[in-house]
């Protein structure tokens, strides 16, 4: 028989892992937005200045969304930022009442998320100040820019929409 007692002779050493950690960077949905981190920082810079923009290809004139660094139509990389309308229409929408993603579960619930038709492009967006029952396909909405608190060492911004009054 081998000796079955462990080397602590009965007294267990304790090791620990943290019980809670702040929202880890890799679970934060919002990307880092500065020139050091992303080549589409101009999109975020423009947002900070109050403008919703995206890239357009100078060679084939294709308008992209999300903004790119290479044109998927012609593989050119001669792109410029152009302004998008700040008003659009609801193309489709729903309201999330169950199955809430992390970081959204304690506040903002339920929330409306929609496909907004801006004309040149469609995008998905949160619709603030609205509930599902009050909305219809085709309703006009307008841009709202928000500043994000969260695990990043620079100010971050994002776009949302609200019903037009």
């Amino acid at each position: 028989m081998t000796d079955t007692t462990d080397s602590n002779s009965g007294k267990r050493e304790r090791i620990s892992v943290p019980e809670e950690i702040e929202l880890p960077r890799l679970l934060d949905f919002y990307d880092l937005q500065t020139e050091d981190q992303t080549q589409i920082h101009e999109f975020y810079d423009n947002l900070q200045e109050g403008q919703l923009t995206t890239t357009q290809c100078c060679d084939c004139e294709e308008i992209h969304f999300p903004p790119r660094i290479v044109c998927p139509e012609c593989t050119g990389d001669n792109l410029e930022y152009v302004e998008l309308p700040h008003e659009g229409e609801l193309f489709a929408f729903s309201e999330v009442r169950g199955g809430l993603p992390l970081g959204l579960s304690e506040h903002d619930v339920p929330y409306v998320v929609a496909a907004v038709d801006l004309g040149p492009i469609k995008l998905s967006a949160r619709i603030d100040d609205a509930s599902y029952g009050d909305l219809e396909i085709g309703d006009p909405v307008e841009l709202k820019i928000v500043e994000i608190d969260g695990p990043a060492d620079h100010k971050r911004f994002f776009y949302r929409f609200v019903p037009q009054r």
Partner: protein
Amino acid sequence: MTRNVAIVGGGQTNWGDRKATWKDLAQEGGKATFDAIPDVGPEDIEGLFVGAVQPERFANQTHVAPMVAELLGIDVDEMIARTELACASGQAALRYAWLAIAAGQLDVALVLGVEKMNLGREHMPEVQSSMANVLDREFDGVNGLAAPPFFAWYAQRHMHEYGTTREQLSLVAAKNKTNASKTEFAQFQSEIDPDEITDSPEIAPPLHLYDCSGITDGAAGVILMSEEKAREVTDTAAWITGSGQSSMAGNSINNLPSFDGWPQARKASQSAYDQAGIDDPLAEIDVAEIHDCFSISEIIEYEELGFAEEGKGGQFIEDGRSYIDGDVAVNPRGGLLGCGHPLGATGVSQALEITQQFQGTVTDDRQVDNPTTGLLHNLSGSGSVHSVMVLDRNQR
């Protein structure tokens, strides 16, 4: 393709909120598969393909195909890989195994799909956020656009464009959930009638809880073989006679079409039908395992897979044509709505169902009357990719 390939059989774990780890599920699924085919053991496997979507997030484990090789004692000498194509990962694994055998690279492959998704109720938001990254996470997932609201848009637009009704969605959900009451391994096993669908809580209107597939732990495995080997182990197999895939150059909202159809499902199925020599899918396909991640998905798929006219998917279920004794038995297993949806395992389980339907080894209540041609369909992510296989009881 040069060589005929057959799915000879397989097995699966119980599905649901399991008291089991990812590795437990992989072992159970592997054992069930080998137990079901006594003539095939780990020593026979030359290719191993593991369908798994988010083991990094749900089990904090990567490089999972070698993990399966170790757990099941398989030395792989030809091909080993994990496939990730969101909800179609299982079918992607099947497709690679099929191609490898058809091309003559190997004769015997194990395809195992495994997903561990239930991490305890308090961690459900983390699971949901991990699934909201199949669209463009930076511009879509960021808006809390997980699967339920995204597919709710499709329900809303399909109702808007074609007059599809809430009742028709309920008929699909009730059909599949009720079929699952006859499926031993299914997550949701109770018979449910259409009225109960809209009594369940609203998750993302117009979709209710019972319009949704579940958060599911589970594994499923099948063995694929070249014709020569298959003949040694079984008389009745599912021969892969066609396999098509189509992906559009779009994964985020701006680059998807109108949210009321899936042109890629039409293209993928057309290419699979061409290979299999199918001219009239409704007349020729007896059993179809298609991707009902939400009730609306199945209605759109009736149309895109060629069972119903454009916009008439709702009428198709209302006319009773997709029940087990209808024109085409759609989701006799109970679908994702009834069986649950352990992402990487789903396509593998669907293929196993069709194989067992051919072999006559499913429970009587869900056995389709003498099926000879079967269809397997998965969509993935934003629905920008569709994968379709045609299986036949007779080789071509």
